[in-house]
């Protein structure tokens, strides 16, 4: 049971992508498959139950991190754009939500203009205006409402020093609202990915008159298909009911089949999976938005045809890897890094991460998906089980012919990613190459703080990284952009790579607004950075989740890798 780990995992949420999943869900049919579960077309009505581990502690649109704030918030908050709710690769596309288009760029993608659709209303019937969206963005700068992604601060002119509308009533000049239906964003630099970022809940409208600051999350004003009726126990028990102000005509993405959605969290993962598989009473119409099947549960489920049909598989863009500090000995020697790349046994690593159904071996840093610009490469071919002979040879060349002793840092949280099992698998493989690995297991908070601190960062550690949206930019830039080495905050460029050529290429690609063209360039960039062996990609995780007997219309996109709750029907 990983009930504890899951908590630690929520903290590990500090690793961006995981946050993304924090509110997200997963289960569904085979990737790209049609909607499954129960026969017949989906109908409106009924109550959907959500069984979760972590309570939805944050519900303020300013404080949520990911696209749509994850699954449940996306039912309450509509945003300028949103992710396309479709299976597989189709679901990595960005589509308009409140806006009529995904945005009109000008001035080299430094200015983005949006027009709002007609007939948009809040739950109280009042109209949604561009000023409300501007206000929603602004309030996310208030320190009382911290938690969102860093892009607004980094991109908007004046964003780096703005402290939010409570302290600075005047607001941000870089967001213009020439009329009630138009909103214009002025950025410091070109950002071709702006439409993807506009899927965040910071772009959800907040009526200024109804804003209660830090208490807003208790009674947020809904723009989506459901409104929050009850929220007790700190997001542990929630009840969502239909929002009369929402109209299906203005929202092509959300279906909102069930009449009510009841969220029960604080459960252990073993209990959640057991309840979903037993499916008695209300559990038959239940899903989970935060609990994957673990290896043991998978072993059990695959032996049961009926259960196996109720498993949804999803591919979220994420890579788990070994991170070096190439400034520290002995990793300053590229041959040592290459030797370790050769020595790694991805079969045992994958097994430790839950087996081949839950993890796929990785040799590229970018996830193996087109939208990220995936370009295959394997610069240091280790084969399926490692190449210790080649590794020894390189070590000898590097002057470590008599063996080498290094420390590998990992988290003690049992999350099948940065956990002791994976570290031990790496340790066992490197031993074959004559490298003695000492394991340093840190309590999850400690681990998380250390790996993202420039001063305290371990020299070799297990890390994982997921895209804030399915594009090469948010995947590569925080890790390899030299200007994103953060001294006193959370640093993700753990290799401290500051290569002008890489930096320039990142800037150049950011100007491209054609996603496919940009993706190709990201892929090429990944391939060239890969030659430096700054990381050893280990695997891409695969998400498997169970859903209840009566659940229909299961849609799993590659954007989230998990079942989309706005598509689910229980009738």
């Amino acid at each position: 049971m990983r009930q504890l780990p899951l908590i630690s995992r929520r903290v590990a949420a500090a690793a961006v992508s995981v946050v993304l999943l924090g509110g997200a869900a997963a289960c569904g049919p085979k990737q790209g498959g049609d909607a499954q579960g129960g026969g017949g077309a989906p109908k409106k009505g009924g109550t959907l139950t959500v069984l979760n581990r972590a309570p939805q502690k944050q519900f303020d649109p300013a404080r949520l991190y990911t696209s749509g704030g994850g699954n449940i918030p996306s039912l309450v908050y509509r945003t300028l754009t949103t992710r396309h709710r479709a299976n597989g690769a189709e679901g990595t596309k960005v589509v308009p939500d409140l806006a009529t288009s995904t945005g009109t760029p000008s001035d080299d993608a430094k200015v983005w203009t949006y027009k709002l659709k007609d007939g948009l209303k809040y739950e109280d019937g009042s109209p949604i205006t561009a000023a409300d969206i501007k206000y929603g963005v602004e309030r996310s700068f208030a320190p009382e409402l911290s938690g969102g992604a860093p892009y607004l601060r980094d991109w908007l002119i004046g964003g780096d020093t703005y402290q939010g509308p409570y302290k600075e009533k005047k607001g941000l000049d870089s967001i213009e609202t020439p009329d009630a239906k138009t909103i214009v964003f002025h950025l410091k630099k070109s950002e071709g990915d702006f439409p993807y970022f506009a899927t965040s809940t910071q772009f959800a409208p907040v009526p200024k008159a109804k804003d209660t600051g830090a208490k807003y999350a208790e009674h947020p004003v809904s723009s989506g298909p459901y409104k929050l009726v009850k929220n007790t126990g700190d997001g542990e028990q929630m009840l969502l009911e239909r929002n009369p102000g929402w109209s299906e005509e203005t929202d092509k993405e959300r279906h909102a089949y069930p009449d009510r959605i009841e969220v029960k969290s604080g459960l252990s993962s073993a209990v959640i999976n057991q309840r979903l598989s037993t499916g008695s009473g209300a559990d038959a119409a239940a899903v989970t938005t935060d609990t994957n099947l673990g290896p043991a549960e998978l072993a059990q489920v695959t032996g049961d045809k009926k259960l196996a049909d109720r498993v949804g598989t999803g591919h979220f863009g994420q890579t788990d890897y070994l991170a070096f500090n190439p400034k520290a000995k002995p990793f300053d020697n590229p041959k040592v890094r290459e030797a370790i790349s050769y020595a790694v046994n991805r079969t045992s690593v994958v097994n430790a991460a839950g087996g081949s159904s839950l993890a796929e071996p990785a040799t590229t840093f970018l996830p193996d998906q087109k939208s990220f610009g995936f370009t295959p490469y394997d610069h240091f071919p280790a084969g399926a089980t490692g190449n210790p002979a080649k590794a020894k040879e390189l070590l000898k060349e590097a002057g470590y012919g008599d063996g080498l002793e290094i420390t590998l840092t990992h988290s003690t949280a049992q999350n099948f990613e940065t956990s002791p099992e994976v570290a031990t698998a790496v340790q066992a493989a490197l031993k074959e190459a004559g490298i003695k690995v000492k394991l340093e297991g840190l309590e999850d908070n400690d681990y998380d703080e250390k790996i993202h601190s420039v001063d305290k960062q371990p020299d070799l550690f297990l890390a994982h990284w997921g895209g804030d949206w399915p594009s090469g930019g948010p995947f590569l830039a925080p890790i390899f952009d030299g200007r994103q080495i953060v001294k006193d905050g959370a640093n993700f460029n753990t290799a401290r790579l500051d290569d002008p050529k890489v930096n320039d290429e990142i800037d150049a690609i950011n100007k491209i607004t054609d996603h496919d063209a940009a993706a190709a360039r990201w892929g090429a960039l990944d391939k060239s950075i890969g030659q430096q062996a700054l990381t050893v990609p280990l695997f891409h995780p695969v998400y498997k989740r169970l859903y209840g007997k009566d659940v229909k219309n299961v849609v799993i996109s590659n954007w989230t890798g998990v079942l989309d709750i706005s598509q689910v029907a229980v009738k």
Partner: protein
Amino acid sequence: MTGYFLRRALGAVVVVLVLSAVVYATFYIAPGDPARLACGPRCNPEQIRQVREQLQLNDPVYVQYWHFLQGIVAGHDYSTGTGVLHCDAPCFGLSYQNNQQVTDLIIQRLPATASLATGAMAVWLLLGTGTGLLSALRRGGATERVLTWLTLAGTATPVFISGLGLLMLFCAYLEWLPFPSYVPLTDDPEQWAWNMLLPWAALGLLESAKYARLTRSSMLETLAEDHIRTFRAYGIAERSLIGRHALRGALAPVIALSAADFGSMFGNAMLTEMMFGLPGIGQLLVTSTQTIDLPVVVAVVMVTGTAVVIANIAADVLYAVADRRVALR
């Protein structure tokens, strides 16, 4: 007697204060920066600075602690950005994570924990003490042996295993019980009891062996005491001897320990709460520990500590009442 209680009450306040200070200090030096954790995964330095200021984390630790104590006594006003949030005494501050009033968080979670502790105590008193008495009075019987093994198995099994076993057996295989999903006693007493049955069993079983053994040795001890033997020599019937005279003395330590354990359940039953998804105080403690949510951690420890201290006073009083040989002092 009044003097005794006054003294104990004063002692209790001191204990809770010391406890809160120790916890505050420990979590203050524990790794993990609350400002960073509250700020979100990818905060830039400026943002962290603002959040740190907003959470008043720039003051020296003793000033922060003092503000915290002040809030408990006098309440505190907070800015929500758009207005003022009055946090009335006893105000344990706001959660670093989402600005919720800590006092509310705790009050919302007390009933579940209290339910768990009460039921578990009933189980260990019935099963544990019963087994102990049985084995002291008629050793060798089949019932006694089964019960002894059962309680032993309970002690030897971590609650995350016994709990899972019970869930699987009764909810998944036999389907005799629904998967526990906490229903407040005030909403529906019957549903409350059904849903609490397994958590009670899991936690109660864990404690039962301890009580079985304590009861047994205490009973044997008492039976060997002079006055009992004198009674016995006078030919008083065994039943009345045990029922009227021995039981009282023998159960004194059992009752005292039960009271103390009941108190400690408030802070120590987190694994059971997590296993069964009970929205209790232990769960709150674990989750807030992970995010170094200091106000919540310290407040919960103070509340659970108070429960323990009060339970201890009750234990001593009960011991004295049950066993006249012990005086309160």
